[in-house]
């Protein structure tokens, strides 16, 4: 990467601001579309922005028995980790701002940090609801990390065979620049499809959306980890959630559908960038629509043991099968 520090900071700010707005707009779309599917009118598209503004001006309450510094620190950690992950993920058809060496693994860890931060925040709140929520978050994290890791590592491994030795296959930029679909044979395509599906199933769990919103479960534990959070702290978690939506969506888009339209229309320069960004937004919306909005409308909340069973058995089996098919594809 040959970006100057000044440029990098400027671009980073732009990305964070843009992704923040995008995440909130998609959250608004999520609420509006889900409402329409449920036969409701739903809030205006701008509602998430109002929510953030309102939370920012509200009082920030720290429970008496909470571990204050930990309780206040965790929203910041959560947002910071998500924002950092954002800089490593290819956005809008461009190469990621940071990265180049093994950042796939880094992103995997950065995606776990917000969950860990929420968990610690929940434990620090020392409320029974938050404690149960934190325990559940921990179990959730252990459940879905395995298929997620298999999928990401499997992709990188297959690419390492396809590309000349010494290529940075664990870099998301390289993965996005060399889509695997055209590299592998028919078996490999099936394998890739399976990995794609398992990543789509992991997405709502990563984002704590129904049917996997167990750590927050409104009717059971009254918001769980977030039960004691209010005001600015809650707004930070809210923003982190919006950013995480963009990160997960972009990760799937970058890994599986990194194609742009500018090549087809033979565009160059500014027009090419504009078309690619627009197409990226459409792809991102499609991913969010299928894996978050439709799923959360169509299912009831699962229980924690049901989630663990789901991720450890069928979803892990699915991603393993995908991995095996990718391996077989190389032999055949």
């Amino acid at each position, binding site marked *: 990467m040959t970006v100057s520090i000044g440029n990098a900071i400027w671009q980073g700010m732009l990305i964070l601001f843009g992704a923040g707005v995008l995440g909130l707009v998609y959250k608004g779309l999520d609420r509006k579309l889900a409402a329409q599917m449920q036969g409701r009118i739903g809030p205006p598209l701008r509602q998430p922005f109002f929510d953030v503004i309102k939370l920012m001006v509200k009082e920030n309450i720290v429970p008496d028995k909470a571990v204050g510094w930990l309780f206040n620190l965790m929203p910041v950690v959560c947002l910071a980790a998500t924002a950092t992950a954002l800089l490593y993920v290819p956005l809008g058809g461009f190469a990621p701002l940071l990265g180049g060496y093994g950042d796939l693994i880094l992103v995997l860890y950065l995606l776990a940090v917000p969950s860990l931060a929420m968990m610690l925040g929940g434990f620090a709140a020392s409320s029974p609801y938050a404690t149960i929520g934190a325990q559940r978050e921990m179990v959730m994290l252990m459940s879905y990390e395995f298929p997620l890791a298999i999928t990401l590592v499997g992709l990188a491994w297959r690419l390492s065979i396809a590309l000349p030795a010494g290529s940075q296959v664990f870099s998301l930029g390289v993965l996005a620049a060399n889509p695997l679909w055209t590299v592998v044979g028919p078996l490999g395509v099936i394998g890739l499809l399976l990995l794609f599906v398992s990543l789509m199933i992991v997405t709502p769990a990563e984002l704590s959306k129904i049917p996997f919103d167990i750590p927050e479960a409104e009717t*059971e534990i*009254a918001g769980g980890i977030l039960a004691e959070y209010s005001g600015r702290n809650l707004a930070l978690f809210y923003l982190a959630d919006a950013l995480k939506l963009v990160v997960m969506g972009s990760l799937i888009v970058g890994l599986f559908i990194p194609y742009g339209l500018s090549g087809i229309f033979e565009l160059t320069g500014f027009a090419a960038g504009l078309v690619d960004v627009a197409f990226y937004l459409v792809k991102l919306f499609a991913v969010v629509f299928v894996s978050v909005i439709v799923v959360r409308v169509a299912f009831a909340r*699962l*229980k924690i*043991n049901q989630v663990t069973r789901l991720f450890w058995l069928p979803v892990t089996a699915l991603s393993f099968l995908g991995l095996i098919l990718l391996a077989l594809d190389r032999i055949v």
Partner: protein
Amino acid sequence: MHNERINLDLGEERTCGLTSYSIPIGPTHPALKEPIRFSFDIEGERIVGVDIQPGFAHRGIEYMGMRRNLIQTLYLSERICGICSISHPLTLVQAVEAAAAIEVPPRAQTIRTIIGEVERIHSHLLWAGVGAHELGFDTLLHLTWNVREKVMDLLEQLTGNRVDYAIPIYGGVRRDIPQEKAHLAYEALEYYNGILQQLIDAFLHDKSVEMRTRNIGVMTYDQAIALCAVGPTARASGVKKDVRQDWPYFSYADMDLHAITPEDFGTDAIGDVYDNIIVRLLEVAQSIKIIEHCLETMPSGELQSIPKVPALLAALKKAEGEGIGRHEAPRGEVFHYVRLEAGVEEPVVWKVKAPTYSNLMPWVPKFLGDEIADIPIIAASIDPCMCCMDRVHLVDSGDHGRRAILQKAELIKLSREKTRRVCG
């Protein structure tokens, strides 16, 4: 009722080891639609003990009723419950009619039956929606409540109100269902006949609902009998118990009615939440049939045996005696006891027992052994109505700050002392 310790030996050991902790649910909590307090002993995610403390919605409504004349009390009784708002007046009129020996014309009986059954449809649909919400299935909640609007419209068209219909009066009903309004009812019934199968599919043939409700909140047949469960809660456990079948009143005696149990759906009665859904949805179908039957066989004739209110009040003032009323409300049996004395306008005694009161204890075996995630749906499974049920609130007047927990033996002793005081 306050601070009562519920500690039943139901074959489940209370193992409060070092690993167990307690979580409070209520009096205000998103899982509860009305205030009640649960205190759960939890091991991991498993419930090993439960303590129920009702008494947050006590309004002294019986006391208020005993200080009003009987017609005012009738309207007051409608305010006991906001959901089954016809059940209490229907029961009270039966009790007073029994005490004062007032005849009710057959057409009025049929109209009472119709309104009671229309209310059952709306109440069961409301419950189904709430249940879906407790499962985290909001789509189903919105769908069900959207469907419910039709029956609310029907209630408004028939009675003028969406809730608190003010239909029964001692000795009859206040409003007729004329021929030109009957077609509205037929229309609504046709709509529900068409949509009911969809609802059954959405609830009973949905994998994610089944995963969350099958074998959850189980109460066996024996426990249901031992704990005197009533209504759909008992019927879900296979107890064939229904006031309409066992003690026919209004025009139910003319019909071939039987208590709906999960066997009618072709499955064995387990007594879990899933069975509760089965019973309530099938009862909607049953209510549709009852209303159709009533509309077809509506007798002609008077609406009230004593049409003039001053005459009615005078007759009630002269009446002396006691009476009971029973009605199968959507949640189970409602029971009213009334004692009238000659020369007194007010009921001397008015005792109300709502179905939720009988269904409190079944909560205990239902909760034990299940998980935290099941608490909302199990709490909802008996369709609790706290403001119907709360009749007593213990206030500690003498011993300041000491919290009294009364066990069954002490309560029996206290009530015997009171009986002696009253009689002696």
